[in-house]
């Protein structure tokens, strides 16, 4: 039986997690909402904005041709440089 953190700390723990995760939950919820403006809680559920994302040439190019490619290159370069420096 190992020691546990005392119970009176639990409200702080829950509070910290609520603060940490609230903006993420809100962003995900808003992305399914029908409104053009940020609106929480959303009035309905729709995939309209996901359709709009894939229909937009600018977003698709930015995401698949730029962000993904840059991300992969950065990861490869960082792995090669970092691993060799750590070994050496």
């Amino acid at each position, binding site marked *: 039986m190992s020691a546990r*953190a005392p119970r009176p700390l639990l409200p702080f723990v829950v509070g*910290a997690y609520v603060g940490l995760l609230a903006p993420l939950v809100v962003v995900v919820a808003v992305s399914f909402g029908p409104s053009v403006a940020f609106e929480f809680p959303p009035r309905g559920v729709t995939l309209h904005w996901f359709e709009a994302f894939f229909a937009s040439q600018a977003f698709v190019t930015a995401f698949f041709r730029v962000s993904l490619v840059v991300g992969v290159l950065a990861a490869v370069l960082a792995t090669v440089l970092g691993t060799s*420096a750590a070994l050496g």
Partner: protein
Amino acid sequence: MDGVRSRPIWAFLTGPYALFLLFLLLVPFANVAMYSLHPYSPTKVFLPELTLDNYRKIFDLYYVRLFGRTLRLGLITTAVCVVLGYPLAYFLARARPRVQALGLFLLIMPLMVSAVIRIFGWIVILGRKGLVNQTLVALGLEPIKLLYSETAVVIGLVNIFVPFMVLPIMASIERVPPNLEEAAQNLGANWYRMFRRVILPLSLPGLISGCLLVYSLSISAFVTPALMGNARERMAGQQIYDEVLVSFNWPSASSLALTLVLLTIALMFGALFATRHASRRDIAS
């Protein structure tokens, strides 16, 4: 013998990273230092003669206030991170393995989402017709202006930097064997006394490195104050950005950037000295 033979391999392995750091960190940094010592020129970026005017200007009231505000908001952010982060770190360090794994996942996952996206979430929560104000109106209270204020900046910074506080504290609490806690309590210490005499001193190194991390990250933050603060009460990062990209006063921006770096380094050494001093005193007593 072996050392001599392995030297070329060592250079070959570390070389690329060293070159990377040299050309993409040290050279640009030296360049910034060079800019900061020349007077500004609207047509030529900077004039060839040397001057300390860029640094003298930092003692103007506007810049003193700017740095004062930056350091103050950094301090508040760090304090809130300690209050929220320490209990969380203690809880995670002493949790069952499964709870700990889930807790760590929930703590680290937000780090993989861009700060900009989390700030959008805060805009929805804190905005004029956001979640907080909707709740206040529903309770029959006056809506308050939260977004674009120092409070909003602190909320945003705490949200982004709390994991950097929790992880080092958690690591140092985990190294304290639980039976030390039990021994202290068996010998008659109540929980509060046990915490003050056993856990707190032994987790101090983690607490200090967490505070240093959060403080130096928050005084150099740019995105959060730019999106959640207002232009009148700006932080140093916004001022540097504006002077680089809006007013094109690179010498002035360079002197501000170097001042910020020097402040951070001074802080690090101060904290290092303080911990050395504290541990020496512990051994002496």
